[in-house]
């Protein structure tokens, strides 16, 4: 099993969710996040005051999939989240040792 963590632009959330569903992946966790990479922050002047946003709003999607589904999930995210501009985000992949379904104690890939 592999854990996929994707930090994307908030405006791309619906498109990424749809793409993952289409790829047959239903379970995911969505988190509101802030951050930046090379993308600079944003400064707005409003009524003489400066408002600087260093950490831009992002969405983080976390999902755990079977090994054979990982690449499909990654491609679904990449194709739907990409705009080509700095700030599109990143995907991180790591191995998962086990997964347990709380309701009935089911373990392993079948618990996904």
């Amino acid at each position, binding site marked *: 099993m592999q854990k996929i963590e994707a930090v994307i632009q*908030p*405006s791309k959330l619906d498109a990424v969710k749809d793409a993952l569903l289409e790829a047959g992946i239903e379970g995911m966790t969505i988190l*509101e996040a802030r951050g930046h990479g090379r993308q600079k922050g944003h400064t707005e002047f409003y009524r*003489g005051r400066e408002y600087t*946003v260093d950490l*831009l*709003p992002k969405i983080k999607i976390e999902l755990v999939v079977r090994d054979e589904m990982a690449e499909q999930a990654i491609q679904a995210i990449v194709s739907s989240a990409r705009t080509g501009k700095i700030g599109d985000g990143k995907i991180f992949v790591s191995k998962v040792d086990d997964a347990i379904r709380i309701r009935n104690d089911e373990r392993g890939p079948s618990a996904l």
Partner: protein
Amino acid sequence: MVADPLSLGRLRSRYQDDFTQLRQNFERTGDGSAAIRRRSQIVGALLCELWGHLVPGSAHTEMALIATGGFGRRELFPCSDVDVLFLCANEKVEPAFGDSIRACIQAMWDVGLRASPATRTLKECERVHPDNLEFTVSLLDRRFLAGSRALYSKFETDLLPVVILREWDTIVQNLAEMARARHAKYGNTIFHVEPNVKECPGGLRDYHLAQWLTLLNSMREEKAWPRAAADDFYGTHDEPESAYDFLSAVRCFLHYRAGRDDNTLDWHAQDEAAARSIGLETRGTSDPAYWMRTWYRQARTVYRRASLLIDAVPPPRRSFYKQFRRKRTPVPGTDFFLEDGRLDLAEGAAVHDGDSILQIFGLIAKHGYRLSHSTEDRIADALPVLAVQMPEGPFLWSCLRDVLLGPWAAHALRTMHALGILELLIPEFHGIDALVIRDTWHRYTVDEHTFHVIDNVHRLRQPQHDWEKRLAGLLPELDRPDLFFLALLMHDTGKARRNGGHASASVELSESLFARLELDADEREAVRRVIHNHLEMSAAMRRDIFDNETVRAFAEKVTTPSQLKMLTLMTYADIGAVSPEALTPWKAESLWQLYMSASNFLDRSVDEIRYRAAADPAFFSRITALIPAMSSGPAPQGRTAIPAPVPTDELRGFLEGLPQRYLNTRSPEQIAAQFRLAQALRDQPVQLAFRSLRQLSEVTLVTPDRPGLFADMAGVLSAWGMNIVKADAFSNAAGIIVDTFQFTDTYRTLELNTSEVDRFVQSIRDALTHKVSVEQLMRSRNHKPTRPRVAVDTRLEFDNDASSHSTLLQIVTQDTPGLLREIALSFTAARCNIAVALIDTEGEAAIDVFYLTKGGQKLDDAAQASLSASLVHRLAQLRP
């Protein structure tokens, strides 16, 4: 004595058969009340039989078997515990017959009952333990089953009333305290996606609580068990399904479904209950959203009654303040009294005056008072009479405005809604009464959501977090908060029509309300636009809010700063009212960011986006249609005057080149009126129109542009002691300016002397036509500025990118008398022309935006530096 296994087996088998029969009856009829009464009967007979077998005859005069709690009420739900009390005459009885008692209890378990027994002597029942109040309360629902009737009679008639009356305060206050703790545990709301039918606010516990408090109040009055039945609580009088029958049916359904005492109405249970129409009068299948709507209606009725009774429980200790509040004070002009924060209708007073009733709700909205439950009952009973007494027109709007603007508006509206008054006034609201949007994120029904939206805006008066403080700054800047709150009240009424977008439907439903309130055209349009656009900001937030295109598209839908502020506040409140977790700091930050970007866009695009008749012929036609046909002169005798044709070329010339902002911030009627002023310029080169607004006055100037014009206008107003709060200055392609100034009359000159208005207007005309020197006017009326409470630093910001042909200059500085004139004189001295001016005030800060040109071009760096130095110097001189 031990139970005979064969007898037990027979009893167990018989009980199982009866239980199965009960279930089948319930599934056929859906009658929960009948099912629980019948189970009480069956279990009662079974316990009597066990008693007869297991308790020796000698004990029958020394003990009594008493049903308590739900069993005592004859409400034995399918999987509920069976509460019984083994009452012993004295302390010798229990040791003597302890084996029999234990045998009975064991037999109950063996037969398949979940026994919840208690054993007490008569003397022990005299004591009330605050830590075990549940036992005392369970005795309120006692019922004789078997044993000594004499002992039971002594217990019920002699002992129990004395104990209850002696410990009345303790029992009642502890009941109230336990209920409050339970309500708090469930968030003080009936709105749960998966409610617990027993424990949740509005559930069976609250129903029983209302019964107990009613019974205890009656006992205090009558000093004995009340003669009338204490179980006289029902839902609202014309509800087809009583709250109790519905709740009972639901709980029975849940017990049978789970096979245990499970009271959670989870998502799947709701689907099944709806499919079987559990608790509904008509059998068949119903939609889960409709079924849950019934749930919320019943729960609301039960919760409201329980809350009112809890609220009426006297507190344990009275402070001096509370003793003061307890004083009964008449409410002037009404038949109401205020006592302890509750409004009571005087004894004997008839409830037929709709005007007084409405005014009372204004008081409730202002102070947070509650109505006593007896007063609520009397108002509810009088609804048919009140229905024909309710006012319309300006008085109704005045009362509604008082409610909407009060800090406790949501509380007042909930009270009005619960009593049916709100739907009398606004029948359009009926469609969203307890309307359920059945998904996992909408916590509330649509009507409750609306009240939360209104509450969320009012709560901004006391902001807690940084993002709330920023948004709170927008609230005092609303031009017409009353219209804004009216829009909030109506914004989701369209959800009752389940076809298509609800925003448009809400606008349609609001039209009839506008007519009843007799709102004018501008007021209706302001409310319409807020309702129509109320989802636009949320939609924009789902896109890239840092993208200029997103900001532009959103700003063009909003069109004016006034609408933007209302939409921002509405979006904040609307998101927060979906559920307590919906508005995260993340979302609030994004909301503020989008607001700032859109606000800046609106200010910075004014000079760029100008009206071209060729590009927007539809708008031109609308204005043309409003120009009244002008008579060519007196009609010949006996003939009708032939109207002159509408001067479309002149109109086109007037509109051409005006900033789109001008057209967006004026109604078509206002534009038509200002065109007429422009037409009159050939007779009088300075045209002025004065009008009084709610708390401001307004002067509109239409005249050919010239250097120093703006400075002169600002000077005259300052000389008269007028504090300019807002202004905008626009010019068309032909060089005609349309400047509008809104100001407060600091010294109340015009307010106290209405005849001065004409002199004031003439004074402006004289100054602008140079018949009078503005400097002389200002010297002759020297008003000393007051010391400011908040110091505002001066900040100047030049932007040569905002417009393709002018330089934007934003000035933020201390608002002082004469400020605008000094700024304008700096421009004149620097030979700068004002293409557009947007003047605003925020507290003690003046926030002014100008689009300037010099020699028809943008200001270069040198010109900016020179102007900047001049402004800084002049503004520093002005500071008190």
